[in-house]
């Protein structure tokens, strides 16, 4: 495969060294799944607070849910540094939106569209922001929940998830989600999903935050942990039926 174009051209000079390729090839510090649902008053979103460095659980207090402007909430999985970069882009976007000072404001649909453009354009330059993003919000009574992937795939739905959440949480949500969930039921549903992810995703961590966004604004909970149960009979004497094992 020929050399792919990157963000800075290599300098060719007989006296200086050639600049190396500077584009994202792998993620380094990553966050795992984010799960989100629409409920009666708005959107509920959950994510754990782990920042993994490969298989090492390096950072245990990473906030992966952040408010954006007045009407939106952003959750991200994938490369944490790229998430921070995205937050800087959005900061600037919201700043300019506020500077118009004209009563108009960017709603969740607009922010989601903007993020889709950013992710897709980076993907086209072969220098992606290595994230899967979930954007949820409420504006003028309209609830909005969307997802954007690192290659710019985007869609809206009543419940979305990133990474492992797509495989483990969404089947649960497909069965148990319904319109007009109460806050308590919504949280219970999300906790059920997060618990499954905790059991089965090796990069998941038992310290999570749940955020809600309604017409009134954003609330992100304090970190807390889920109860887990390991007392299954099959886990006692696990090697009792294994041949040649001790």
């Amino acid at each position, binding site marked *: 495969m020929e050399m792919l174009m990157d963000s800075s051209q290599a300098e060719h000079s007989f006296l200086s060294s050639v600049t190396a390729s500077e584009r994202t090839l792998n993620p380094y510090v990553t966050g795992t799944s984010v799960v989100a649902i629409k409920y009666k008053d708005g959107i509920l979103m959950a994510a754990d607070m782990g920042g993994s460095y490969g298989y090492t659980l390096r950072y245990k207090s990473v906030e992966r849910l952040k408010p954006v402007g007045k009407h939106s909430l952003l959750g991200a999985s994938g490369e944490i540094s790229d998430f921070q970069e995205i937050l800087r882009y959005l900061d600037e976007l919201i700043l300019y939106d506020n500077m118009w000072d*004209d009563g*108009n404001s960017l709603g969740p649909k607009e922010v989601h569209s*903007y993020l889709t453009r950013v992710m897709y354009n980076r993907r086209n330059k072969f220098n992606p922001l290595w994230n899967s993003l979930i954007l949820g919000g409420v504006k003028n009574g309209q609830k909005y929940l969307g997802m954007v992937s690192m290659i710019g795939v985007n869609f809206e739905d009543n419940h979305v998830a990133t990474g492992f959440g797509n495989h483990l949480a969404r089947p649960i949500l497909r069965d148990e989600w319904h319109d007009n969930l109460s806050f308590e039921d919504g949280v219970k549903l999300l906790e059920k999903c997060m618990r499954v992810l905790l059991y089965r995703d090796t990069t998941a961590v038992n310290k999570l935050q749940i955020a809600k966004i309604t017409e009134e604004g954003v609330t992100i909970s304090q970190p807390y942990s889920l109860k887990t149960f390991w007392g299954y009979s099959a886990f006692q004497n696990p090697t009792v039926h294994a041949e040649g094992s001790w």
Partner: protein
Amino acid sequence: MFRNQYDTDVTTWSPTGRLFQVEYSMEAVKQGSAAIGLRSKTHVVLACVNKANSELSSHQKKIFKVDDHIGVAIAGLTADGRVLSRYMRSEAINHSFTYESPLPVGRLVVQLADKAQVCTQRSWKRPYGVGLLVGGLDESGAHLYYNCPSGNYFEYQAFAIGSRSQAAKTYLERRFENFTNSSREDLIKDALIATRETLQGEKLKSSICTVSVVGVGEPFHILDQETVQQLIDTFELVTEEEPPAPEPASEPAAADQGGAEQGAGAEQGAAPDEGVAPMDI
């Protein structure tokens, strides 16, 4: 306005603090044929008079669709108007593409005004010679703005620009307080009547005017000639039945049932012409 030694350059101030070139560019707007705009809470109507150079030629296009929710009517150098419309369309579509949401009219108008201002502060440019009536809908309702070559912009309930626009403005000033709650039909009717005011006796026909509407649930579009002619006919019949007292300006010689030619020309805001007989020849 007379020539003076400070009016050659747009970048030269006069001792009294005026930029004559900018003021001259606003004169160009006054020379163009009239354009009128009115808005209610839910609709904006833009109308204009189409002057053709000769009977052989077509009319100049003076109303442009910028997006489904924004339209613009121009008066002055129509070439400048076309270029600015293209800019507006570009801005609207770029916003739509990035945010999947219609560009708020207020923001477009500010961008337009800033663009016009640049031309008043560069020695190698000249101001745009066109006034724009921008009408559109956004989250906060229906809006009508006037963009000036000077780079200023104002929001209006109703406004008219171009030649003999004062006649239309006088009519609108009398009636504007009712516009907020006007129905779509009444708003169009008022626009047509205001347009007729600028014609100074010439009969209002759909072939010499253009009317466009944008409203809640109604994307911006220009009404076709037949529809406009029907509307003209409707209110011309009505004004014949109405007593002259309430709106003297809407009366002038409009009371012809068969749509026959006018007898006397009507002065703007003059006393109603009673006793004009239809020409039976």
